[in-house]
């Protein structure tokens, strides 16, 4: 039943996304979009000692894409880079605590892809 995915927590994070906007200082930035849906998420990371010490996101998308990004930023703060690079679709589903159809799964993964892309960019610089 797909209505189940629109639980309070997802609607709440969609309507009031956490860590939305830009970092106070310039960080490592990566953008990913999903051309099928028009989801477009940019992650901004401040990384110190292989840890994410601050994080923001911005962009547009459906409730699943925005809520996933919001929940992911909450989780990622103060996490080690190695923890974040090993996250996969199951970790995202766990964060969202829902089941998603293959089509909507893509929406949930846009933010993770952006986060991991930013970490990769950062890695290349050190």
């Amino acid at each position: 039943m797909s209505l189940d995915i629109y639980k309070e927590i997802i609607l709440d994070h969609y309507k009031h996304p956490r860590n939305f906007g830009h970092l106070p200082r310039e960080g490592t930035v990566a953008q990913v979009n999903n051309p099928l849906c028009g989801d477009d998420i940019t992650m901004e990371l401040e990384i110190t000692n292989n840890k994410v010490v601050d994080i923001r996101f911005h962009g547009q998308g459906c409730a699943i894409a925005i809520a996933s990004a919001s929940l992911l930023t909450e989780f990622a703060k103060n996490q080690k880079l190695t923890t974040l690079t090993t996250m996969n679709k199951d970790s995202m589903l766990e964060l969202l605590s829902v089941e998603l159809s293959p089509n909507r799964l893509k929406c949930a993964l846009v933010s993770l892809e952006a986060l991991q892309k930013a970490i990769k960019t950062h890695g290349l610089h050190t």
Partner: protein
Amino acid sequence: MSLATELRKDFPILSNYPDMVYFDSTATSLKPRVVIDAISHYYTHLGANIHRGIYDLSEAATEAFEETRAVVADFINANVNEVLFTRGTTESINLLIHTIGEQLVQEGDEVATTLMEHHANFVPWQQLALRKKAAFKVVTVDENADLDMSSLKAPLQKKTKLFACTYVSNVSGIVNPIADIIKTVRAINPHTIIVIDAAQAVPHISIDVAAIDCDFLAFSAHKMCGPTGVGVLYGKKSHLQTMQPFMFGGDMIAQVAIEQSTFQEPPYRFEAGTPHISGIIAFKESIKYLNNITYKAIKKHEEMLMQVLISELRKQCGASLKIIGQHSVNPRVALAAMYAEGSHPHDLADILNADHICVRAGHHCAMPLHKHFNIPASTRASLYFYNTEDEVQRFAAAFSKALRMFI
């Protein structure tokens, strides 16, 4: 009793899913039993390939196949040798860029289309222009999503070799004043080749290529109760005769020698290889089916449904819900692409799916138009003669409930 109540019985899929509200006929229409039976009849009673056999079954298959060409010609008021079969609108238009487009357009020329096109009538021309180093001009739309007739004149010049325009928009449902548009283009340059995308016109409007005076016209069977994988390209005989084939192979050949080949007369010259025989044979059944209902009756029913839809949406969803083209000065067919700030079409379509309501969410292969209005995506409900007022009520209630979850 409404038109739909009787006709729904002709659609097996509707009895297989009695709970389903199918509001995605713009993507593809459902198929009546006569069409499904005709496909199956070919495989069970004809079976043979066309054009080649001397035996009875092959001749019967050829006859059934060519009969569709005559029915199509009649349907659009063309001559029978002006009707080419393709796999669909997309292939019909791509055939043109490889034939007349290739021959006609040179560096420094212009190719023009409009902002309200489906990608199938936009990207091929854009790519042709890029390849030929020709200018690519796009006629814009006004704030109502109507074609901007004053901007039509600016890009269209003597240098404009080709102008491609849709008859009906698959996003706004706007019916362009196509005969007037063609007249305007002809007045600027009588030699401009005019290509009409009629994919969304054929399900709702009867077409007369002689009256509108286009050079080419393309459409797909599957949007008008016919099979998938069957399309038509109409072309004026004088053009078809000067066009070189672009696909070579069986069926399109007159003579083959080691040094040289000669080709059949149009339309066969453009139909290389074994076509979708069963689909083309069955296609005439869908034309007969629609003619039997009459376009007049279809229009009347659709207008009634749209009136209910628009007034229910206004009542239940309020002013924050916008419909692309709702203030058009032109007539519109039975579809509505909607958007409301704060809600995303994919979420809405997903929620409606839980109620067995099928709508489309996205840009509907019309990114230039969505970008122009700064809308990332819209939710499109598209109706046909088999939809009922009751379904419209169910949709409006479910849609407004879904919207209220977000805004």
